[in-house]
């Protein structure tokens, strides 16, 4: 049976968890993979914890249920670690990526996950630095691609350019690309 890679995104509404989950799926499609990207909406208000999921496979994906055993968990806001059991169902060999100013040791200790499978990225810092706004989803996409090598970084950047250039202009898109690269390099060096 074909393996499906499943990723769970945790964020607060407004941080772009859904956009990131769908964007990753779209980029996967560009590499000829079968994909799903979908959100799980609760109460629709800014700041509420939300989840979104990405599935990717070399075979058709038929299931339409929640992801319960992800290979990777991405947390866009480290305050969620106090309210959501982010490692629930995470595969033994799976890893967790957190947007935080803390170290991977500290995060590993907090969530009870092996240090070697925890990546701590200051995506908010990267975003504020480059985009002058707190939009952690794009750098976290770069971080995830670095950690999983699920798709090529170039494919991700191309998809983002194609999707957003018309809507937001090349300046904003270039900023996002820079932020993605920065986070990608940070994870690669960890």
């Amino acid at each position, binding site marked *: 049976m074909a393996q499906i890679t499943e990723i769970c995104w945790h964020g607060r509404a407004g941080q772009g968890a859904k956009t990131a989950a*769908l964007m990753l799926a779209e980029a996967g499609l560009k590499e000829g993979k079968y994909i799903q990207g979908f959100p799980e909406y609760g109460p629709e208000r800014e700041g509420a914890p939300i989840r979104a999921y990405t599935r990717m496979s070399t075979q058709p994906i038929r299931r339409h249920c929640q992801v319960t055993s992800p290979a990777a968990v991405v947390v866009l806001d480290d305050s969620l670690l106090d309210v959501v059991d982010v490692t629930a169902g995470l595969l033994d060999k799976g890893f967790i990526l957190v947007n935080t100013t803390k170290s991977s040791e500290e995060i590993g200790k907090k969530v009870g996950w092996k240090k070697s499978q925890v990546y701590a990225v200051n995506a908010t810092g990267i975003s504020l630095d480059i985009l002058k706004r707190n939009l952690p989803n794009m750098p976290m996409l770069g971080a995830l691609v670095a950690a999983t090598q699920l798709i090529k970084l170039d494919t991700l950047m191309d998809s983002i350019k194609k999707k957003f250039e018309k809507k937001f202009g090349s300046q904003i898109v270039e900023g996002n690309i820079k932020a993605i690269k920065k986070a990608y390099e940070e994870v690669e060096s960890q």
Partner: protein
Amino acid sequence: MEKVMAFTGDEIAAEAMRQINPDVLAAYPITPQTETVQKFSEFVAEGRVSTDMIRVESEHSAMSACVGAAAAGARAMTATSANGLALMWEIIYIAASYRLPIVMPVVNRALSGPINIHCDHSDSMGARDSGWIQLYSENCQEVYDNLIQALPIGEDRNVLLPVMVCFDGFIISHGTEGVAVLEDKVARNFIGEFKNIHSLLDIDNPVTYGPLDLFDYYFEHKRQQVEAMEKAPEVVKKVGKQFGELTGRFYGLLEDYHLQDADLVVIAAGSTAGTVKATVDELREEGVRAGLLKIRTFRPFPQKEIIQKLSKAKAVAVMDRSASFGAIGGPIFLEVRSALFEEQKKPLVISYIYGLGGRDTGINQIKQVYHDLAKAAQSGKVSQLVNYLGVRE
């Protein structure tokens, strides 16, 4: 010829509607249908369609505007969900009885109350006696394929009935998948032109729509409506075959998955049919003879085909994403069980109500259903006729 691109269910519904380019679109926003009409309104603003878009103040008016436009001879569309469909109620019966082939995406959502924006089929299942054809879609690809096929089905001279293309709220409407899309001119050629042969605006051949029709002719008109629905299955199959010849994706009234030698069969409609397929894959690896029978058309109900498809099954679970209060089991279950009544040799049939208000239904739960079926098949007895999958009792 086709291009595979990423779309959510709502986006691909809008994309299909762009290709259809209806003369009139009258709609009112409701979650989770909103993005379909939002996206379509962008096409209107960009001049990519020539549709006359009517922003109405309610769904009752949306369907009324569609009825008026279609009676005048236009191709008319709208889209809705849940309470929006409920507010159209009066007019959906009228659309069907005037034999107006309006096509409407229904993004399935639970009816209030308590208020809930997530998926179940209580909205469209409630409309099952309204006289509309209902096509259920498993994924984003089927949303597209069903919408493109809905027009030649509904507009066929032997049918002339409105069509709901149903897909699951959020699960499909807000989920991105890869969808193969036809070139515009190929899609438009497949859909064809619509010519209302009884246009209200044809003053040389005057007709009337909706006059008083009492005990003298009302019954005959209803009988004709029944007749139109009885002719629909052949047209659904014909269009599904033509679509298959064009795209390689063939459609009928039902779809089966590992059914040929299956002892244990689950019947489902909508996105969960996909999850059942994934479950069947896992069970087959364990040596369980599991299969799926997917309902594509609930209206017209494919009785003959269901009997034939279930002829070898030992035990069958019918999964309904809606409750029918006071009835014995869900609506699909009731009709499947009734269809088998005359058969000498028939499987045991069990009802499962699942996923109300968007409650997630995963592979482990569906495995439990197959497990129950195996027990029933072995003992020859159904221990619990109506079951509620994944509810806290």
